[in-house]
């Protein structure tokens, strides 16, 4: 029996009680993942217990790991001069092997296997299991390694707690400081917020792990703590630089639309100048000079039936005869407009679509075109200027991906994803459907549309015989938690999201054509799931010679 295995067995024996608790937490979490999520979500007591457990169990997991890692590593500490193992014939590589075996088997592989088991129980297909495994492994590793680093550089649990706490606070302060500094430098909050989004690459997930591993290895092999601390600080600096460079520099990109599907040359943009309106711009710093957002209705003509073109990005400018000008590059918030209703109707085979109006919503949405300084607005609001803009439009259409009868238990499965109707609750003027969705997201690769359900979706109740479709009056989440919230540090994906949503469908009495969702109507109804199919983007230019920020 090798000495490394001998030390590993000693560690198991030493921490058997904590490990038993750890295993119990993993099993209970897995049990909840497998069984509790299938319980009726209208059982509020059970749902409450489940919600509480889903929050408490990962916390408990985290606390256990916080205790286990320093106890196992500091049983043979690498710092100081009084450790028992220093004068025993245990080589540093043997010790490193023994501790690696413990960390890998107990804190990484075991929870990974349990996670995979839970995924299997939820019907994730083998191909997706294989694709999800690296992400799960990396997630567990990146959560444990920083604790190992701190444990290897401290001599006791008390020091570990102090250094760990200070490191965490320091990390938060640095991250907050850098984020604040970026926002202060660039005043366009929305642009900053959008630009923060990024996908996780294998390399960006591996780099922190490799750097932490190098610190741990150096400490085990040399026991030169100061050098290890220098390596650690250098590694953190490198990570910070990589993070800042990779998160800030990515330009917004949409692939070009297939011209066979949407011909941009046939699309025409125009502005309804009567709808031009100004509003105070939201800025990160609520101090003068304030700015104004100038919005207007954009009319898009020439799109094929059933297709939507949403303004997404604008590069706009306005120039006045006196030489004053302003330019703006920014994202345009997508809004629900008539073209959405038209596209839905087309996807539903021409059915009449009933959508209750949301408070404050207009059928004529306005899109932000320009952002100008308050002073320019005051001086030139009613002056005629030349407005030019290149607007990036995203083409899409709605596609029906599933039809379910309106009854409890009706289920749709697409590869690893599913949704099912768990409850059908009748109301005097409508119905509430509770829908549970299970959706897989992989950390390193996006699932293709044909491989699962999309996050952006629309549910519709369709009565084909009456050619009527009703959109939800209200939609609210009952429960939306990742199946394995676990604990993690850094960016991770929620690998399998299970959520329950209540869809409230009501009749519309004050509509032009009233509709009543009664038993008779429901008898011939189906619940449809539509997803937005993104088709790419294209740019169109706008030029308005007589543009006034405040129409007369």
């Amino acid at each position, binding site marked *: *029996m090798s*000495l490394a295995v*001998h030390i590993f067995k*000693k560690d198991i*024996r*030493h921490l058997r009680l904590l490990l038993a608790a750890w295993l119990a937490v993993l099993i209970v979490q897995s049990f909840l993942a497998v069984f509790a999520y299938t319980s009726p979500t209208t059982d509020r007591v059970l749902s409450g217990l489940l919600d509480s457990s889903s929050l408490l169990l990962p916390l408990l997991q985290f606390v256990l790991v916080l205790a286990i890692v320093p106890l196992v590593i500091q*049983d043979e500490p690498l710092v100081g*001069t*009084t*450790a*028992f193992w*220093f*004068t*025993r*014939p*245990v*080589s540093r590589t*043997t010790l490193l092997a023994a501790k690696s075996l413990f960390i890998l088997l107990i804190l990484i592989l075991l929870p990974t296997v349990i996670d995979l088991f839970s995924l299997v129980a939820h019907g994730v297909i083998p191909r997706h299991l294989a694709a999800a495994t690296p992400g799960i492994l990396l997630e567990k590793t990146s959560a444990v390694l920083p604790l190992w680093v701190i444990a290897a550089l401290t001599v006791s649990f008390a020091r570990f707690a102090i250094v760990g706490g200070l490191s965490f606070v320091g990390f938060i302060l640095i991250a907050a400081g850098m984020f604040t500094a970026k926002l202060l430098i660039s005043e366009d909050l929305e642009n900053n917020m959008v630009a923060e989004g990024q996908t996780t690459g294998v390399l960006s997930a591996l780099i922190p792990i490799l750097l932490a591993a190098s610190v741990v290895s150096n400490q085990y092999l040399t026991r030169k703590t100061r050098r290890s601390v220098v390596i650690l600080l250098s590694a953190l600096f490198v990570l910070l630089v990589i993070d800042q460079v990779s998160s800030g520099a990515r330009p917004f990109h949409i692939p070009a639309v297939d011209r066979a599907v949407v011909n941009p040359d046939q699309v025409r943009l125009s502005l309804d100048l009567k709808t031009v309106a100004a509003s105070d711009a939201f800025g990160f710093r609520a101090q003068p000079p304030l700015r104004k957002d100038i919005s207007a209705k954009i009319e898009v003509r020439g799109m094929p039936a059933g297709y939507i073109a949403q303004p997404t990005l604008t590069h706009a400018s306005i120039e006045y005869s006196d030489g004053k000008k302003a330019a703006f590059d920014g994202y345009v918030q997508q809004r629900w407009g008539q073209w959405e209703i038209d596209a839905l109707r087309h996807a539903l085979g021409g059915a009449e679509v009933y959508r209750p109006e949301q408070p404050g919503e207009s059928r004529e949405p306005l899109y932000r075109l320009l952002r100008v300084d308050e002073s320019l607005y005051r001086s030139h609001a009613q002056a005629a200027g030349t407005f030019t803009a290149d607007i990036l439009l995203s083409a899409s259409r709605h596609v029906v991906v599933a039809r379910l009868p309106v009854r409890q238990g009706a289920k749709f499965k697409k590869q690893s994803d599913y949704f099912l109707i768990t409850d059908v609750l009748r109301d005097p003027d409508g119905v509430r459907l509770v829908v549970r969705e299970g959706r897989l997201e992989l950390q390193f690769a996006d699932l293709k549309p044909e491989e699962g359900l999309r996050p952006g979706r629309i549910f519709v109740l369709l009565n084909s015989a009456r050619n009527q479709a009703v959109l939800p009056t209200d939609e609210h989440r009952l429960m939306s938690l990742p199946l394995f919230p676990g604990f993690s540090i850094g960016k991770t994906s929620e690998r399998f999201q299970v959520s329950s949503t209540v869809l409230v469908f009501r009749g519309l009495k004050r509509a032009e054509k009233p509709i009543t969702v009664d038993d008779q109507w429901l008898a011939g109804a189906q619940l449809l799931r539509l997803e937005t199919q993104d088709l790419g983007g294209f740019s169109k230019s706008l030029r308005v010679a007589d543009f006034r920020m405040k129409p007369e």
Partner: protein
Amino acid sequence: MNSENVGYAIETWSLGRHFSRKEAVRNLSLQVPEGSVFALIGPNGAGKTTTIKMLMNIIEPSEGRAQVLGKDSRRLGPPELSQIGYVSENQTLPEWMSVRHFLAYCRPMYPSWDDGFSQKLIEQFDLPLDRKLRDLSRGMKVQAALVSSLAYRPALLILDEPFSGLDPVVRDDLIRGVLELAGYARWTIFLSSQDIEEVERLADWVAFLDQGQLYFAESVSSLQSRFRQIEVLLGDGEPSPRDLPASWMRFEMSGRTVRFLESSYGDQTIEQVKHLFAGCRDITAHAVSLRELFIAVARARRPRAQGGDL
């Protein structure tokens, strides 16, 4: 020391270690003959534990080098450590283990582990096998550490003040135990202590360390042969000589009696004394205990600058 025909378990050459601006050990050169019981003595803060930690590769020397069992101390690895037993008051044992578990944990690390010998030691020390180390008295912990360090019959046993803080009965048991074991085989025992009585009972070689500096390292017999307490009864009115030989220590005069410690006693010493005290009536030379010797050396060295050998 004549190094030609003797093997050395430990050798150092100008070994030194500093912590920030403090020199804990400087210019330490000594040789520990194989099979000897070698005691490194000195007061608190003398550098004894630092020396041992450098020898055991627990800390790196700042200067100089050392060899332990023929290997550079910086390269001590499992093959060498499997031949070295180490017990220290400063070492942290895995206190959550029972004595039985502790010994069972150590056993696979040593190919030469002798179960029979281990059992004998356990019985000799009367160790409670099922009690956890943290529940043992300090003396029992030392005994458990000794068993775990002796059961594989190491070639070199290093003891860093293992008996400090123990009550006299326990200390006596342990010392007798170590002596008995030293008699079994040609083990080398290197121990540090500030207890001179303990050293007198155990050691046949002694080195004196103070403020990081080595003042002497030689066999006890050699020390005892060259140190003598000299008493001189002077004649009436005889003055004390102005220039005292450098080898005289703790010179004191009380009435007509002069006393001093001669550190280089030889055949010519009495003649030399007679020459310096021409009118002396009587000269007696007594052997000194190690305790008296060390006190004298310590006191003599403290006010002086760094000097040469005694």
